[in-house]
């Protein structure tokens, strides 16, 4: 029994092969899928930002949202667009900094509350 059927001993929630099946999502709601994929393609087209810059943003966001499919896809895409591992690592640090900073800045809220409760 294959892993992707979810019935084998090595059942996992994420299967790299599922990324290749993304298009099958259209079987449920074809009009919505068409709109999504058209829009998705337009988003990543060369524009005010280069396709390479958008690819690095996508790579960073992939880490922020912790999407393994996206990380696979945009690691490849970034390399294909000429980025190197230094640039890609810095992009991931940007995502990590925002995530870390987002937690830490809530410390101000904690401090406000402490001050409100304290004497």
């Amino acid at each position, binding site marked *: 029994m294959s892993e992707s059927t979810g019935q084998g001993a090595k059942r996992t929630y994420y299967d790299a092969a599922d990324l290749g099946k993304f298009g099958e999502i259209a079987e449920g709601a074809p009009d919505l899928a068409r709109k999504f994929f058209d829009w998705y393609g337009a988003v990543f087209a060369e524009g005010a930002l*280069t396709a390479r810059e958008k690819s690095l943003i996508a790579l960073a966001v992939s880490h922020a949202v912790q999407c393994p499919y996206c990380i696979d896809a945009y690691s490849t895409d970034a390399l294909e*667009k000429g980025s190197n591992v230094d640039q890609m690592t810095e992009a991931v640090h940007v995502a990590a900094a925002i995530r870390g900073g987002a937690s830490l800045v809530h410390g101000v809220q904690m401090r406000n509350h402490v001050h409100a409760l304290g004497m």
Partner: protein
Amino acid sequence: MGRILATLQKRGAELSGADAQRALLASVPLPRSFEAALGSSGLFPLRPTTLDILQVNVGRRCNQTCKHCHVDAGPDRSEVMPRDVMEAVLAFLTRHRVGRLDITGGAPELHPDFRELVVRGAAAGAHVMHRCNLTAILLPNYADIPALLAAHRVEVIASLPYFQARETDAQRGAGVFDESIEGLRRLNALGYGRGTGLELNLVANPVGTFLPGDQASLETMWKRELKQRFDLDFDHLFTITNMPISRFLEFIDERGRTVDYMTRLANAYNPVAAASVMCRNTLSVGYDGRLYDCDFNQMLEMPLADGAPRTIFDASLAALHEREIAVGPHCFGCTAGAGSSCGGAVA
């Protein structure tokens, strides 16, 4: 990492033979065959258009052992084109007025008669192209080559997969990047790539199991980076897909990525690229005079189709024009995305 690795042949590797490579490629389950893909585009059987390029592989000797090399070239290879084959090549070039003589290898300049082939090819009226690894021309016995190329207006097509050492050396061997920069400096100093009419084009194969990006965008990036970092200039960047043959085939197979890579190529089939594949206007000659539809078929030992001439000694244009081009799963490498040829993207 060492600068020089043993070739597949030297190691007696399982994939050193063309039979084993073809068998492995044939065993990969793909969504459809290359023939079926061509058929869906109305291109099967694939036929030649006009013969514009005579691509001559003068031998397997090279001073590098790049990981992606489809020739399995290296210092331990000894095959070189003998005189009688070279004479037949020049006779064919002259007789049929083929417009372009594309000299490849190995490192072509290591052939003892490379200089003569350049001079006589140019004298025959052909636009001569030299596929240069940028480091052989630094060797003492070959340091005269750049000036010779310039004197005969030879187009230089030089390999540089990235504008940094780490990526370039990972593919081509330790220290190759720094030497390549010196090779480019010498070519620039002669006027190559600097608007003098001496054409210097770079080739970038991906440093890994991914496809080349948009050629025009990468060219812009390579030009900017090489100018800023090293004050170097060139004319065009050609992106070339890594072909699943010889060392690159072993590379992906050892990593268990053969199916993924071949599927990626097959899924990226582009009918526009298929219509412009280089085998339609190119004839490939092996060091031993055998004829092939391309350098890749040559390494897989897939000769011209039955009925077509087999060697440069018995080649006629009419018979060549009637042939069906021999294809296989590796051909998806030339039709993926924007396509790939010895002149870069085709679509």
